[in-house]
């Protein structure tokens, strides 16, 4: 059965940095800033450790969107892991496109540890974007 747009609940993987976005998410949680629940947060120590494999895996396993949250430039706990990831990002967009995923399904944002409201805002916004785009074509293009 094809789901109608309105009950399309996107599945979103958020790979987030322990020091900033993860803390901001926590802050959003404790300040009761609710954000859509269909985000699966995976804690990384730094965006620098995010292997392109993880992103591809997430898309191939059916994620409708992948969100990466890291420290603001200059703020990375490990000097510049965030910028190293940013460099990888361009390549990543190209790769997922080759696999048939719209590059807008992958989003990188800097969210500082004290930015609970920004976290909430970013999540809501990303979900909206994905909702507008509709389900990911992952099922159709699955390769073995």
């Amino acid at each position, binding site marked *: 059965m094809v789901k109608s747009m309105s009950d399309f*609940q996107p*599945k979103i*993987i958020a790979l987030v940095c*322990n*020091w900033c976005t993860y*803390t901001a998410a*926590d*802050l959003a*949680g*404790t*300040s*009761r800033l*609710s*954000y*859509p*629940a269909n985000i*699966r947060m*995976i804690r*990384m*120590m*730094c965006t*620098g*450790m*995010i*292997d*392109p*494999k*993880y992103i591809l*895996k*997430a898309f191939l*396993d*059916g*994620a409708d969107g992948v969100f990466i949250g890291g420290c*603001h430039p*200059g*703020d990375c*706990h*490990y*000097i*510049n*892991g965030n910028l*190293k*990831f940013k460099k*990888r990002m361009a390549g990543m967009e190209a790769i997922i496109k080759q696999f048939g995923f719209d590059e807008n399904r992958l989003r990188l944002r800097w969210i*500082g*540890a*004290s*930015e*609970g*409201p*920004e976290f909430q805002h970013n999540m809501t916004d990303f979900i909206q974007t994905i909702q507008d785009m509709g389900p990911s074509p992952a099922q159709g293009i699955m390769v073995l």
Partner: protein
Amino acid sequence: MNQPANILVIGAGISGIRSALDLAELGYKVCLLDRAPAMGGILTRLDRQFPNNHCGICRMLPMFDRDNSEEFCLRKGLSHENIEVLLSTEVIAVEGNPGNMTVTAVKQATGVDADRCIGCQECEKVCPVEVPDTFNAELGKRKAIYLAVPYQMPNQRVIDLQACTRCGECVKVCPTAAIDLERTPETLTFENIGGVVLASGTGLFNPQDMDIYGMGHFPNVVTSSAFERILSSSGPYQGSLIRPSDQHPPKKIAWIQCVGSRNPMIGADYCSSACCMISIKQALFAKERLGSDTQTTIFYMDMRTFGRDYQRYRDQAEKENNVAFVRCRIHSIEPNEEEGNLKISYVDHSGKPVNAVFDMAVLATGKDPLRKLPDFAAHPGIIATDAVSEWMDIGSSVVSASGVSERLARMLSSAGIKPEKQATAPLSDKVAGSPHLQVVLCSCNGSLDKVIEENQLAAELKKIPGRIDIMQAKSVCDAEGLDQVKEILLNGPANRVLFAACNAQVFRPKLKQLAAVTGIPKEFMDVVNLRGLTENAASHDLLGEIMNQLEMRANRLFRKKITPADVRPIQKTALVIGSGPAGLSAALALAAQNIKVVLVEKKETIGGNFANIHDAQIREMIGQLMDEAKDHPLITMHTDTEVINNAGVAGQFVARLRHANGAETTVLHGAAVIATGGGKADLPADTLADNKIISLYDLEAELNQPGIDAANINTVVFMQCIGSREEPRNYCSRICCLKSLKTAMKLKELNPNCDIYVFYRDMMTYGESEKFYTQARAKGIIFIPFEKQEKPAIKIESGRVLVEGYDPVLNEPVCIEADRVALASGLIPNPVDLVASTFHVETTQDGFIQEADSKWRPVDTGREGIFVCGLARGPVRADEAVQEGKAAGLRALRILARDTIPASQHSAYVRHAICSLCERCIAVCPFDARYVDPDLGRIMVDPVACQGCGVCAAECPNGATLIGDFEEYGVMDEIEAALG
């Protein structure tokens, strides 16, 4: 009381945290107290700090042996194996002698049992009492039962018992019966305390009673700390920069400096040191938030940008961001006709009275003049940080706190008190066996029972593939509940544990306790926040959510492996380069802890600039250090010697020394302190040649000659900032203003009739040295400010030396015929090229050694095991150099005091069999933690330097590098489960 603490740290602000961490890292048991119900002090109110406008407090966390503390935002809380944090607790009496003190403290009742409170907020919803929100500068309201710091972890409530009406509503709704309004304060006695660090801060001035500013009368006049709250997303307006009266964004904002500081009338004859930079930062944020056309004006007397990189920060604010700087003490703030606006009247540069209208005014407040030190402060065995008597910026507080830690460690070791060796539970044999997971469903004192039962979680969990046992506990937070779990882990087959409980950050410290008794490493345990998931109202499919999370974590745990742990022995010798006050202090700090020190000095004598120093006090201080170091059996000195090579990793370095005669020596050491110092800058090449025009240093030397007759030195002009604070040497040298003042006063002493003029840009008499400035003015010394672009001119006319300037007070040009013109030429670092390349550390554009982080890790360099202090790092006074030396010594001691360093569970490791030696990981590693071992032909990871950031693993084309705790299959499985 059965506290194992042998050190107490009073005050859990930035200094207290630094000191507690220092001592905990040396292995001492520390109890960190604060009378406030939350830790963090003033810092909790500051989201971002200059000069990089971010927060980096997490960089203070231990850099190695990181498994000892939770790796998590330090603003939210601190969890370290050796530190116990006690809040709402105030010390009232101290007895006994260093090494064996008894401390009495009172723990205030907060009305809430912290062990039971689950932070559910039900109480806050029903509390009928609203009071001004003190955390947010009273710009909003809070309930009588509240969270002391909105983002703190754990997020347990406290009750403001003064405001509480004891209506009992909260007691009724609390699901865990955590509230007890009848509780009374408890007296705690700590026995057997080795020493106490006093780091209680200086408080913050309250300008409420200063009529001229209208604080309290006009809502749009706020203090700088209130402005920080307005900027903060956890603040009263959720981070929108709006003004209190009408909640509109202000278009014109004024900052008024020195409110309550530099004001002898109210007992504040000091400078609070950090406010100038704070105001510039705030002005920059205002522009960033509200747009660059926002008008920001800073009214100041002197912009005290005396830190190494601060002048450039100010210049950038002025030139690139158009922050306006107006030099004056304002006359008053009054309401303007327009609703809420403020009229600020002052006298401008040309002597004209001006009335300017602003939408909002920020009062830059600092140290509280009324704050007194507690009675016990002078008790032997108590060592106070400088930050209890002076307001200072974070970097200085951190240095001072580490300096105090060093003194305390020295005191303890001379009293024969050693840190206890920690017994770690041996790894349980089970761990190596095939994965078997114990899931513990915590009902959180019954409050999650419904969720667990309705969803039949136990039954659902059985469906996860793999060996899984399930148990339900009433509350793992209770000792009883935790014992139950221990029992099962000790006797059952499980070797991995997954809790479904509350917030992971709150819960994790408990995992450590469990790990210690069960021998199952804490990396083999995890937590899912069942409570959080349940509360998230947006959830459509609660069971799906919960199971998903549990399965994600279970998969990760199933994949966990024990990482091969290399244990590295430590070479217990330190190498100190430079023998000025900083280097000597570092050497002595280490030698006092039984570490051998090799002290290398390039010149033929030790003491740095000792020969050029005339200040009796400073001479005595350095002289003493020199004598102590010369006599110390553990310190070996090499003068006329340079370090020409250094290789290896922290704990195991090899250095090569070259002596003046060409001979070379090899030194094996575990850590190095760079203290290569600096010295006076030469006068600019275009200085007129006349023996009346001399450097400040030369005038100082002249006046200190024995038997000097100053009778015919009748007019002297001092000129500040010669070559300093403008490109290419755009930094404040920090010592010249004070030196000019002291020299001028000496002159007045020798010849009371001497007329003295000081041309200055900004008098940098920060902190307590402001008193010299006040005294100098009282003695009739005339101070004339000038701007960088309108420097006074020095001329020679028929043998007479004339200084032509402009006096803004008289509002006319002045021309002074001088018997001496003393030029304050400032400080420059000694050349550091060789030392920087030898030790692979970065330098600044001005030729100083770059520290790892100017605020949070001021004496570390980017390379673990290499430290920097004193003039090599930036301009400092001699007493500050001593503090930095001690701090650097202490940082090195963290490594050198150990016999071995174990690899962290979070460090990277290499699967050599599939490594292609492409060395890409070496190139990307931000900590220089990787190298090729030429003998083995392998890539090696230095577990001390490795911080576990994982950049290597992400870049490795072969998947040969793995991170202990973030091993890739685990992450892949977690992703799979998440989408399952």
